[in-house]
């Protein structure tokens, strides 16, 4: 398994502002993923972040809105920019550990007012 922490655990933000979410892993991993989960819904992949390369975004998600950094093999950040109430959601990072297994962080609950 993997020990993954996220900061902040929750936040309430005003429309038009930005929030940066941090994800820290207890050991080095190649691939990190960012997901969004709206209340009562499934998980939607936002982007894949590999160290040393640009993040790869899924359809419907763009770098200007969700810039991602991956400065080393244990850390990544996701910024939600120019927020609107539609961005209210839980944001989770996950890592691939061992062959094919993904483990999730505890999530960041974001409310935009």
């Amino acid at each position: 398994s993997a020990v993954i922490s996220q900061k902040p655990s929750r936040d309430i933000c005003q429309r038009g502002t930005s929030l940066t979410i941090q994800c820290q892993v207890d050991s080095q991993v190649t691939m990190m993923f960012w997901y969004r989960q709206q209340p009562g819904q499934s998980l939607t992949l936002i982007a894949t972040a590999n160290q040393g390369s640009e993040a790869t975004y899924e359809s419907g998600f763009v770098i200007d809105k969700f810039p991602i950094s991956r400065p080393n093999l244990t850390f990544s950040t996701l910024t939600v920019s120019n927020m609107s109430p539609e961005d209210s959601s839980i944001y989770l990072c996950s890592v691939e550990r061992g062959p094919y297994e993904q483990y999730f962080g505890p999530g960041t609950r974001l409310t935009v007012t």
Partner: protein
Amino acid sequence: QQPVQSPQAVILREGEDAVINCSSSKALYSVHWYRQKHGEAPVFLMILLKGGEQKGHDKISASFNEKKQQSSLYLTASQLSYSGTYFCGTEGLGTDKLIFGTGTRLQVFP
């Protein structure tokens, strides 16, 4: 395209069995199963790789039919701790990412 799970919800008494199905429209390399309890992160249960294998963990097992692009999760003699939402995550051929299914909410009562 998002995999479709069925049923959407299941209500069980302790000791009863359940089957959750996951169906994809794309060719798959692997299927992962996760359980998520309310307010918590999804927890990895098991992975099935291309090859039609079946896996088991305690009283939870799963099968993967790659030709039909389907997987099923079997929960036998359910326990209260099995309650939660179950998601399948599918990995397509040539990709390194998971696409999660629509989810199945399972409730086990005494």
